[in-house]
């Protein structure tokens, strides 16, 4: 399959890239890992007249923990997240997520910035970042701004990014002691989108009660879903089986899946209930081992 013709731009600075985007407007798309965009272009579901390839811009990739945040450059490949020792040891929810995105070959090119900026409710990072309370950094011709992830996903394949802005960094708050998380995904085969997936992150207080809770849902709605009622139901309570069961039911109620080849509405909602139960159990177990 051959994509429609386009003009290719390879800027070497962010300033050059945002100036190009400002000039070209809606006719241009940013090319990062290309693992969602290029398949869409081959199917002619997307036919941008211009591609602005940001892969040659230095400083857009890398993982470091500073100032109370894990700062991940937008061009960081999924395989780099998967192999990162700091992600593995300190951010188990993110480590879980990076292992189940697409397949190992796709993960060598796919980027965390692209996964979020694409705005696809079937992508895995959105739910994880909702659970982690992350923020994204965007740079445009007028400078830099930060957006909380909770208001980033505005519609199917739509985000708070302006056409002349580039997502440059993802910031995840460093978890306090007694924090843990888990990502559980059911997929028909490696590389398929999730039938449903659930991201859970908890921080426990000294008395064992849930101090903070984040729950994000993948591919069960028009946008990634933050299960706020489920989160609220756990806050201040000990995460015992009855409390987790109630939170899982609330998460299932928050899901708004549509029926497709992967399953019926009822099946997917029940899957969210089960995956939330298991993700919360695992998150609590991990929080208890990180004092």
């Amino acid at each position, binding site marked *: 399959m051959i994509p429609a013709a386009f003009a290719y731009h390879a800027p070497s600075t962010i300033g050059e890239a945002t100036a190009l985007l400002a000039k070209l407007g809606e006719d241009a798309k940013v090319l990062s890992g*290309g693992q969602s965009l290029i398949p869409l272009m081959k199917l002619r579901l997307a036919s941008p007249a211009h591609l602005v390839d940001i892969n040659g811009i230095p400083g857009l990739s890398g993982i470091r923990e500073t100032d109370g945040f894990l700062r991940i450059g937008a061009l960081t490949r999924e395989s780099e997240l998967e192999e990162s020792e700091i992600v593995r040891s300190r951010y188990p929810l993110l480590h879980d997520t990076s292992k189940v995105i697409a*397949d190992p070959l796709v993960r060598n*090119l796919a980027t965390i910035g692209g996964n979020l900026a694409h705005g696809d409710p079937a992508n895995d990072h959105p739910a994880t970042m909702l659970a982690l309370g992350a923020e994204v950094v965007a740079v445009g011709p007028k400078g830099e701004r930060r957006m909380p992830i909770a208001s980033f996903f505005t519609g199917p394949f739509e985000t708070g990014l302006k056409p002349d802005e580039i997502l440059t960094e993802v910031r995840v708050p460093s978890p306090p002691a007694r924090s843990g998380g888990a990502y559980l995904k059911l997929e028909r085969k*490696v*590389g398929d989108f999730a039938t449903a997936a659930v991201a859970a992150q908890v921080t426990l207080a000294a008395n064992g009660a849930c101090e903070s809770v984040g729950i994000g849902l993948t591919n069960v709605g028009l946008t990634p879903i933050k299960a706020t009622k489920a989160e609220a139901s756990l806050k201040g309570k000990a995460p015992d089986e009855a409390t987790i069961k109630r939170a899982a039911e609330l998460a299932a109620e928050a899901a708004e899946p549509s029926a497709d080849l992967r399953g019926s509405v009822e099946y997917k909602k029940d899957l969210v209930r089960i995956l939330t139960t298991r993700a919360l159990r695992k998150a609590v177990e991990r929080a208890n081992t990180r004092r």
Partner: protein
Amino acid sequence: MLVKLSINGEQYEADVEPRLLLVHMLRDVLRLTGTHIGCDTTHCGACTILMDGRPVKSCTIFAVQARGKQLMTVEGLEQDGKLHPLQEGFMAEHGLQCGYCTPGMLMTSFAFLKKNPRPSEDDIRWAISGNLCRCTGYVNIVKAVQHAAAQMA
């Protein structure tokens, strides 16, 4: 747009349209037809090559993105008329039936064994999970990779 790059240690260049996919440049322009086009939808991995040492799907990269990169294709496995232990392994263990997925399987396994020279069976299955064999000959493919790992140890 002019693309200059290194493939299997040799310099190549071609003047291509930006929309030309890397796999098409390899096969149709440079006539390196060892790399196969399978599903053409980023699923099957038949088109896997190494770009700067990492296995990637060449049907999901534009040729212009490979400017200045070091590529390795299946043609680069054989050295001085001698097959690579992975190629020997695929022969010895009957790791190929129709052979269509083989170039991708070989390139993924080549990069994998460099990172993990003593893999478990689970490690191998995980590593090749982005490469599909429609003959479903995975049992012998895993044996072939194990054969190569033993030869190279």
